[in-house]
């Protein structure tokens, strides 16, 4: 009996040690997308203490004068690691931290760049979205992320981008165009376009391999994706999944097909006076092998789309 108890305690301690080791020394690297454009690809998991919340694509673009960080990471810890990776590429100051939207995997690392005194930038509705979710995220993610969360601050943008009024930032011989969207993935999506290499950071407007998560409007998301100007794109960095010059085309197609399929099926159920429960237990299940984390987000997408489509 006593022996079992000791083994139990010992394995708890071991688990604790291993956990802190992986969070401290895990190899965090960035990959080059195009000239001067780097990203770290998030893992296709939900945020945990072990993955330090590094589940979304985050990175930076280097100009002649300074650097812009695009999404800061899913924890303070990831922000720090991204900052270190940035310093391995360049000594130039960080002048901007751009948040593509409010979700924790994209902005919990904001405070790690504070010492550079950057301008934080986001969609005009980002401050309100952050204020509305702050307490909830703080409670949920301090639990989920453990030590990786320590140091996290909710830093609201000091400069915002309005829908229909794109903003151009100059990093020195390099211009970035920031575009704010009407409600799609969220009600405050922002994309970043690097003119020099024709690279588009889509934020979570585009998910590749990992199932898209709807937190805005299914109709808005479909129409914004359909009107996305893809003519001049040499490279794309999606919010989740591999960046590059080719995969995004198939990814965009697959995402549109997913969203349109569930929209059509939900509309039928609503026409037939069906319920959310009926929708979540039938809609789109044939696509479960097309996406990673389907079980975690699909029914939620159906729920969110249902209450929107009820008002058509």
């Amino acid at each position, binding site marked *: 009996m006593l022996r079992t108890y000791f083994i139990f305690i010992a394995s708890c301690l071991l688990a604790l040690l291993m956990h802190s080791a992986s969070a401290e020394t895990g190899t965090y690297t960035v990959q080059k997308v195009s000239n001067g454009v780097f990203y770290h690809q998030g893992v296709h998991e939900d945020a945990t203490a072990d993955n330090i919340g590094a589940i979304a694509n985050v990175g930076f673009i280097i100009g002649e004068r300074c650097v812009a960080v695009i999404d800061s990471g899913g924890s303070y810890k990831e922000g720090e690691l991204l900052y270190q990776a940035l310093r391995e590429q360049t000594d130039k100051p960080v002048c901007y931290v751009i948040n593509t939207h409010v979700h924790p995997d994209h902005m919990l690392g904001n405070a790690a760049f504070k010492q550079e005194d950057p301008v934080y930038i986001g969609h005009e509705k980002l401050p309100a979205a952050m204020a509305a979710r702050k307490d909830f995220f703080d409670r949920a993610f301090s639990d989920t992320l453990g030590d990786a969360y320590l140091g996290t601050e909710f830093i609201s943008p000091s400069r915002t981008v309005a829908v229909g009024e794109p903003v151009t930032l100059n990093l020195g011989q390099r211009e970035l165009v920031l575009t704010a969207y009407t409600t799609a993935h969220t009600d405050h999506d922002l994309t970043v376009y690097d003119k020099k290499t024709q690279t588009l950071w889509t934020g979570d407007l585009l998910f590749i391999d990992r199932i898209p998560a709807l937190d805005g*409007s299914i109709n808005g998301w479909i129409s914004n994706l359909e009107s996305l100007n893809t003519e001049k794109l040499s490279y794309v960095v999606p919010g989740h999944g591999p960046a590059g010059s080719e995969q995004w085309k198939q990814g965009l197609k697959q995402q549109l097909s997913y969203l349109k399929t569930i929209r059509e099926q939900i509309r039928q159920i609503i026409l037939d006076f069906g319920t*959310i429960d009926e929708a979540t237990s039938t809609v789109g299940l044939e696509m479960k092998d097309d996406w990673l984390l389907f079980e975690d987000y699909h029914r939620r997408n159906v*729920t969110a789309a249902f209450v929107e489509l*009820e*008002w058509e």
Partner: protein
Amino acid sequence: MFSRFISIVLMSLSLFAVALPSSQAATDKEPKWSALKTAYFGDREIRDNADDLLVLEAPKRAEDAAIVPISIKSLVPQTADNYIKNIHVIIDENPMPYSANFVLSPELGTVDISTRMRIDQYTNVRAIAEMNDGSLHMVSRFVKASGGCSAPAGKDAAAALARMGKMQIRMRQPTVGEPVQAQVIVSHPNYSGLQYDQKNRKYIPAHYVDDIDISYNNKTLIKVEAGISLSEDPSVRFTFTPNEPGKLKAVVHDSQEQEFSMEKDI
């Protein structure tokens, strides 16, 4: 810090309780519930595990924290002599745990009601039926919080505000004398008072639907007294039997004294 500790203890207690085979333990041994019970019902006796009277359906895990469908069915028909006069819905861990009071008429025939709630942390959800003789009967379900980025905040506050007060009464073509399902929805942001308006640097005052009165030929079938636990765009789905041709009417009142209504001929 201390309250955080307490909430962790509470959460582990409730998790522990749910793991026990007897669901009796899930309710009686919880300090939070005993405080809520005293606050809302004083020393009145509540019969637990009233599965012979009520069925409460709620998902095991909230898919979207802002929209959690729950439904309540009675296994006993409503008659003039013996009927459920109220169903109190309590969500232990919500900011305002007392979430709704459905006031029911015996004319409803059967009780089969569903609605949508905000649930953003691990919690017990309780439905307590109060019979016309005053006795109380409870069923409860444990709901896990959703994972990921699901916050109870609205998805598109501007859209919700723009169509505020728009209503729908949705139902299949009814037949007199036959039970029919109907749904009343009203577009309303249902602000909880916890949302912060960064632009104007102040909290958006609570502004929520506090009363929905659903009547048939001017006799109330269901009256819902509600609070901030109801989802944005509150929805009430119910079954009733129109015994003669007439008018189904829904009147919605909110906490800023606005009133919206809609009716449908049957």
